[in-house]
């Protein structure tokens, strides 16, 4: 199972990039919100795996 990691890169202009790996669905959103804190979001992009893992979870529920 892939380790869940969060990488935050803070630049000298006060902007941050957040990169979440190994997450899916609501736990991904929770971690994102934890690290976003009170900052304004400039860009937010879900990666393909986010949707793939969600579909798998739905399939398992249906079975």
């Amino acid at each position, binding site marked *: 199972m892939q*380790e*869940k*990691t*969060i*990488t*935050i*890169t*803070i*630049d*000298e*202009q*006060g*902007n*941050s*990039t*957040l*990169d*979440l*790996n*190994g*997450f*899916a669905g609501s736990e*991904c*959103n929770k*971690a*994102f919100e*934890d*690290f*976003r*804190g*009170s*900052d*304004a*979001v*400039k*860009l*937010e*992009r*879900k*990666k*393909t*795996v*986010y949707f793939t*893992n969600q579909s798998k979870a739905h399939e398992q529920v249906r079975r």
Partner: protein
Amino acid sequence: MSKYGVTITEVREEKFLVEALKEMGYEVEVHSEGAQLNSYYSEQERKTANIIVRRAQLRGACGDIGFARQPDGRLTLIADELDEYAGYGSKWLGRVQQLYKEKQTLAMARAKGYILKKREVIQTSEGQQVRLQFAVRR
């Protein structure tokens, strides 16, 4: 991989702002009700701030530098325009915000149980970046 985002730091928490300024080597005054800033323009316009670094500590500055609490909770920079050219402009503020964000992130992660795995300082063409990597506690 699952999600990627870019955020803009908003300074709201006094504690981390004070810590950031102290790390930059300044003595910091905290005034919950606000205190007057001494300014090159002070005879024309009196300004107050909640967190203040006095001019004596700011090499080459014309006035004090402060951060004032806004109605929406943000702490915004109050400084003389002249001091932008004395090294206390957007680059200086960016460094304050970078330190603020690092301190806030480390405190939040500790409180919520994330584990700090790595801290790196990276030199880029656009300046220094701080990279923090966390893992989720199992």
